[in-house]
């Protein structure tokens, strides 16, 4: 059965070129970057080169990059680290109601620890209104965290405006740029924010690596304490092969980003056009505004997304409903509900996230297959 993988926002296949850059660090250059000998030096050199690369791509200084094991860890470090460093200054955080769980659940946990969190609403397209950010700011606001581009809908936030507001109030600004980096051009980190989270496995890099950009001077405490790794901000023997792979993947992503964005946007738009044409009663969530080019989120009225997904899966097509890490939650997506979808619309939402391997043929196949699947499911639906 031919495979069509349209779940690139969940994870991407590892670029074979990236794997190649990693292999030496599994084999000959296996050293611990903190070891006092040639093996250590080799590993250390590779680690610092990777840091240099990522810093350069972001428009940052190497010292401002802390490698983590994932973007989840980067988000946790950003939020918990700032809260701990500024605990005597204030306890109010502003975020949105549509953040990734790595931010949302962390905010909830911080709430239990005595923080106060403002969860901003979004409009029907899933965007935060910068004015609501301004209005939410209090004297004890220590952090604003708003994601760059959404994993479920692809919607891009008015991040520069929000950044400007944060800066004008001298409040630390964090953005989860996991789904933006490498997919769209982003301004130099130092112009945009104080903290930015990245993930390797979303850009054809290996799992097990992420990064937090930390602008020089940003008050932050470590989450993992121990040895003096990562400027004292993240203890634990560095995962050198993964970090090296992450840097290589980031380089490729940025280099290919321009062409690939155009190509994917065309394919994504084609998929949407085909579906609008052949499937009645659908809505495309977030379509009205700027989105990352590889993502579309489609609500098929009167059917349940998991049933669509299983039919697709049986035909060798991989897609998802919402983010991977809420798979299995019976509740409809918090994101779509926040955007004003009805529970039924939210239950019928399927995310297609395209990537390097996606072809026009894939798109045509998927559109055709979906037409049948939705027809079939509607024929047995109790709400059709």
């Amino acid at each position, binding site marked *: 059965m031919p495979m069509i993988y349209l779940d690139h926002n969940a994870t991407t296949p590892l670029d074979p070129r990236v794997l190649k850059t990693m292999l030496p660090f599994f084999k000959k250059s296996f050293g611990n970057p903190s070891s006092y000998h040639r093996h250590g030096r080799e590993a250390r050199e590779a680690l610092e080169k990777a840091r240099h690369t990522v810093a350069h791509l972001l428009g940052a200084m190497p010292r401002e990059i802390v490698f983590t094991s994932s973007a989840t860890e980067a988000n946790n470090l950003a939020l918990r680290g700032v809260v701990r460093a500024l605990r005597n200054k204030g306890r109010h955080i502003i975020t949105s109601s549509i953040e990734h769980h790595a931010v949302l659940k962390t905010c909830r946990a911080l709430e239990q620890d005595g923080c106060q969190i403002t969860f901003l609403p979004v409009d029907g397209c899933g965007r935060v209104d910068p004015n609501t950010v301004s209005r939410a700011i209090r004297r004890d606001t220590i952090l604003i965290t708003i994601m760059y581009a959404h994993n479920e809908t692809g919607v891009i936030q008015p991040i520069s405006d929000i950044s400007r507001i944060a800066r004008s109030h001298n409040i630390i600004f964090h953005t989860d740029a996991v789904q933006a980096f490498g997919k769209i051009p982003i301004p130099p980190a130092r112009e945009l924010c104080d903290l930015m989270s990245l993930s390797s496995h979303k850009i054809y890099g290996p799992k097990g690596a992420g990064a937090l950009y930390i602008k020089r001077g940003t008050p932050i405490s470590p989450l993992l304490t121990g040895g003096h790794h990562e400027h004292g901000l993240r203890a634990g023997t560095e995962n050198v092969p993964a970090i090296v792979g992450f840097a290589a993947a980031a380089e490729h992503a940025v280099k290919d980003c321009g062409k690939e964005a155009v190509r994917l946007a065309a394919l994504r738009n084609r998929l949407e056009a085909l579906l609008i044409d052949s499937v009645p009663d659908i809505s495309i969530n977030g379509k009205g505004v700027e989105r990352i080019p590889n993502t579309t989120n489609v609500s098929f009225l009167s059917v349940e997304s998991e049933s669509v997904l299983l039919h697709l899966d049986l035909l060798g097509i991989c897609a998802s409903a919402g983010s991977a890490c809420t798979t*299995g939650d019976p509740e*409809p997506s918090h994101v779509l509900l926040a955007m004003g979808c009805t529970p039924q619309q939210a239950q019928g939402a399927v995310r297609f996230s395209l990537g390097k391997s996606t072809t026009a043929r894939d798109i045509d196949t998927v559109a055709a297959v979906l037409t049948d699947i939705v027809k079939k499911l509607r024929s*047995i639906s109790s709400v059709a």
Partner: protein
Amino acid sequence: MGEKNIVLCASQTDVIMKTDNHDWKKAYAPAAQHELEEHQGPVLFYNEIVIDHFTNPRNVGEIPDADGYALVGDPSCGDQMKLWIKVENGIITDIKFKSFGCPGAIATSSMATTLALAKPIAAAKQLTDDDVISALGGIPENKRHCSLMGIAALHAAIRDYETKHACFAA
């Protein structure tokens, strides 16, 4: 110093085997198996019977002149289903359902209707979600709640039939 457990340079296999023979197998293996299933996590491993009932659901449709009807919803996920029965001489002679639900809901509803069809009302009332699940050869742990919907609808439709029937009798 009580270091008897830690025999330097002894074979690890010994300890592991000892573990196996004594407590591990007895105390942990069954639990472990259960735990594994429970923790296959959000990704679902449906078996072939379930897939079959999902892709070819039995008894889908509506019965316009049904003797009993029910609409039930699962509040946890917002899914819902409708179920109709036709009863003759106390026997379910026809049963149909429609479902806005997940694969688990569709397959269990399909199986529930299959089990109920041609059964006397009294027998159909005894059916439980466990019957449905075992007829399907099992269902992922976190999909058990879905199986409740088909059974709940069946029971509700029977109640509906009985209420109407009671009315007629009255």
